[in-house]
């Protein structure tokens, strides 16, 4: 038994070492796919019910009431008035808990040259029963310190331990927290119900941040023209009744309106993340598909050899499986690691938009999914040829080309009339039509993604949201990262397809050269064999990208990116495909025809 294990291991390792480039390419494709899938899953997790998670983690309120505040001329509300209002609300039917009232001032934060308006809420150090903001970094408030809402902190670039100026005073940042009571930066309380008319400028409500301080600190912040407001958080027996409750009581708003504010905010980003995630996932699977089909053909040859030296079908299957698993597991691990490093980049940005606390970048589910997929690819690539071989005789398995490449008489006839590179390209494609199809799909997915992202960018000026430059930068960052990942993955897929085509076509290319085709014609033929399927893929990707974005960003009019951008994407894609596939074909054309023919 042990001898069997050692033998299997040795055979598998030897096989891998004999074809290093192949193994490397397989590793690259699986690793990139794994990274992408990891990120894709992480992205989908991020946009998945984040508000609900925040509400759960912070004991979010169902109804928020505002007292006080008011216009410049208003008088600050007296404590008796406040107590009466609080009493009527907290004793209203359906209310089961409350926290507050918390004094809230309208002020401004100054940090590293930026000045941003803020709503400053005064809190107790002891945790509140309703709406206790969840600290993500650092600690809760203490005298002389401030806690900043996470979205706001990201935008400002503030970290725990920094000093900020608030209303002329310096405060140390004690921590960064999230809440479900108000939408995160760049939205704010004032987008829903503004107690500070002074905050509203001639261009509407600007972006306002949220900070928490001790009650005494907030009292000191109140300006003469902007009296303190008070926030009261209520928890209902039935959260669904919040709108009915709010209808009966003035100056209140529901948790649902907070959620809508968030959704309106992140609508576009959510679409981008969703689309990006899906496309990355599909692209990864397409690449794995090409890899698996190629491995199957390669392994069929190995099977013949193994059987010829006396291995039983079981041993053969084992050797192949071990080989593939080693590659797959290694690559998947590398991919997961890379994904784990990259995902926070994205979710960190996303968190600023969504504020989901405690959502891990990579869930156990993600790890399991990716490992399972990698193992599935490995298993299919090894078991299919092994099963086939167990059925066929050793002799026919050894006969190097047991299956005649597919033949399309029409293509052969048509290609005869075309210039030599096209002739070679078309015949190459007709030999392996499935790979050409996967190529088209791969490019189509990439272009769809890029165009969808361009469409979302084109949408922003049209949308009726005031978005700060900081937020726009973050959005650009996010889409840039997704675009880069799409492009990298597509590049890996395309290079792999180009390399696989050149490698599989080694023999026929050498023969064509022996029959009189120049090396240049052969290289051009191989490049065109990659380019011809890519072209329809790229062209289809444009309307698909526009359509996908339109579908997901429901309610918005059709946004079409400017023509120059679309043309640019098309040209860049075709250029990239040409270059990436020319390299392996050029390399393979360097050996003399005689050497290739003799070794095949």
């Amino acid at each position, binding site marked *: 038994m042990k001898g069997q294990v050692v033998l299997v291991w040795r055979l598998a390792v030897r096989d891998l070492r004999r074809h290093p480039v192949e193994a490397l390419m397989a590793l690259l494709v699986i690793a990139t796919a794994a990274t992408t899938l990891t990120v894709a899953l992480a992205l989908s997790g991020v946009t998945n019910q984040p508000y609900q998670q925040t509400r759960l983690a912070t004991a979010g309120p169902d109804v928020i009431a505002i007292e006080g505040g008011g216009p410049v001329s208003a008088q600050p509300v007296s404590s008796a008035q406040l107590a009466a209002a609080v009493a009527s609300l907290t004793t209203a039917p359906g209310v089961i808990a409350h926290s507050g009232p918390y004094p809230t001032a309208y002020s401004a934060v100054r940090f590293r040259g930026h000045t941003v308006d803020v709503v400053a809420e005064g809190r107790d150090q002891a945790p509140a029963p309703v709406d206790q903001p969840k600290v993500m970094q650092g600690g809760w408030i203490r005298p002389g310190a401030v806690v900043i809402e996470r979205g706001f902190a990201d935008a400002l670039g503030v970290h725990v331990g920094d000093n900020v100026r608030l209303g002329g005073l310096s405060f140390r940042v004690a921590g960064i927290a999230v809440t479900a009571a108000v939408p995160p930066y760049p939205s704010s309380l004032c987008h829903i119900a503004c107690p500070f008319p002074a905050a509203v400028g001639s261009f509407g409500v600007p972006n306002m941040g949220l900070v928490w301080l001790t009650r005494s600190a907030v009292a000191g912040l109140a300006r003469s023209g902007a009296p303190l407001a008070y926030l009261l958080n209520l928890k209902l027996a039935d959260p669904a009744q919040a709108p009915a409750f709010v209808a009966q009581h003035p100056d209140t708003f529901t948790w649902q309106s907070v959620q809508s504010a968030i959704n309106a905010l992140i609508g576009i980003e959510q679409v981008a993340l969703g689309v990006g995630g899906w496309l990355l996932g599909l692209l990864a699977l397409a690449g794995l598909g090409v890899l698996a089909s190629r491995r199957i053909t390669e392994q069929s040859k190995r099977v013949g050899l193994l059987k010829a030296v006396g291995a039983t079908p079981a041993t053969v299957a084992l050797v192949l499986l071990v080989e593939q698993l080693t590659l797959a597991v290694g690559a998947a691990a590398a991919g997961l690691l890379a994904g784990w490093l990259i995902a926070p980049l994205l979710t960190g940005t996303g968190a600023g938009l969504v504020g989901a606390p405690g959502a891990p970048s990579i869930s156990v589910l993600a790890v399991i999914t990716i490992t399972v997929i990698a193992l599935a690819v490995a298993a299919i690539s090894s078991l299919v040829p092994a099963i086939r071989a167990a059925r066929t005789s050793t002799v026919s398995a050894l006969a190097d*080309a047991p299956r*005649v*490449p*597919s*033949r399309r008489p029409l293509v*052969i006839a048509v290609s*005869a*009339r075309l210039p*030599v590179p096209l*002739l070679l390209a078309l015949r190459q494609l*007709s*030999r392996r039509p499935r790979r050409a199809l996967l190529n088209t799909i791969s490019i189509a997915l990439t272009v769809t993604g890029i165009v969808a992202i361009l469409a979302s960018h084109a949408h922003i000026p049209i949308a009726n949201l005031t978005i700060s430059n900081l937020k726009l930068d973050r959005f650009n960052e996010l889409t840039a990262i997704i675009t880069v990942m799409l492009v990298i993955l597509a590049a890996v897929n395309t290079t792999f397809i180009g390399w696989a085509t050149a490698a599989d076509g080694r023999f*026929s290319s050498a*023969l*064509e*050269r*022996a*029959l*009189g*085709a*120049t*090396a*240049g*014609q052969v290289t051009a033929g191989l490049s065109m064999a990659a380019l011809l399927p890519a072209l329809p893929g790229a062209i289809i990707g444009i309307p698909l990208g526009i359509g996908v974005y339109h579908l997901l960003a429901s309610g918005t009019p059709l946004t079409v990116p400017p023509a120059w951008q679309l043309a640019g994407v098309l040209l860049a894609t075709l250029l990239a495909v040409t270059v990436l596939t020319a390299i392996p074909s050029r390399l393979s054309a360097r050996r*003399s*025809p*005689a*050497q290739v*023919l003799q070794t095949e």
Partner: protein
Amino acid sequence: MTSTRPVLRASGLCKTFGSGAALVRAVDGVDLDVAPGETVAIMGPSGCGKSTLLHLLGGLERSSAGEIDLAGECVSGISERALAHLRRTAIGFVFQGFYLMDELTAIENVELPGLLARRSPKAARARARELLEQVGLADRTGFLPSALSGGQRQRVAIARALINQPMIVLADEPTGNLDSTATVEVLRLFESLHESGQTLVIVTHEQRVAATADRLVSMRDGAFVDETRMTGGSRGDLGKLIGLGGE
């Protein structure tokens, strides 16, 4: 004796592989003249470099040293493109392993070099049909290689080598993968080509094949060691041949 210009002339051909301790001199200073219409056979044990020599002559491999002239033009130092041009106009190659494209029918295989040489598809196909008739496969033009026997496949390969009316046909162990019946088929073909004036250079280790040549050159360790002119005897000797001579 009138000296007609040789179709092929090689002088001082060398080909080395590897370097240092692993240096292999596959071809070591070979001179060869092939007159028009002549059949030359190159014989030798395996590993003597005869296949490499043929690859050099056919432009499939670059020589390390030496010169090759084809119909008076020097072809040893030319560019890759020019070499490819030669391969589709002046040289026809026949391989031991046939090397037909598996997914193309016999006639599509034969016309391929024609298409590569930019002939019109019609002309190429017509000539391919002609050639397949010539090699006796007129009824199998639409067959795939997998449906043909070894001898038939090699005949298709020979037809393919002839499609661009090459000056010289080079054959590398053409009967190596064939049984004796198929060998006779191919030898018959070479005989008829010889009669029609085609210049042939055949590399072989079989005496039967070598016996068809006008001139037989023996090769060992990358160099020529012997040359035999094979002049024919008269039919009168046949009685002795078959053992019915007088007592």
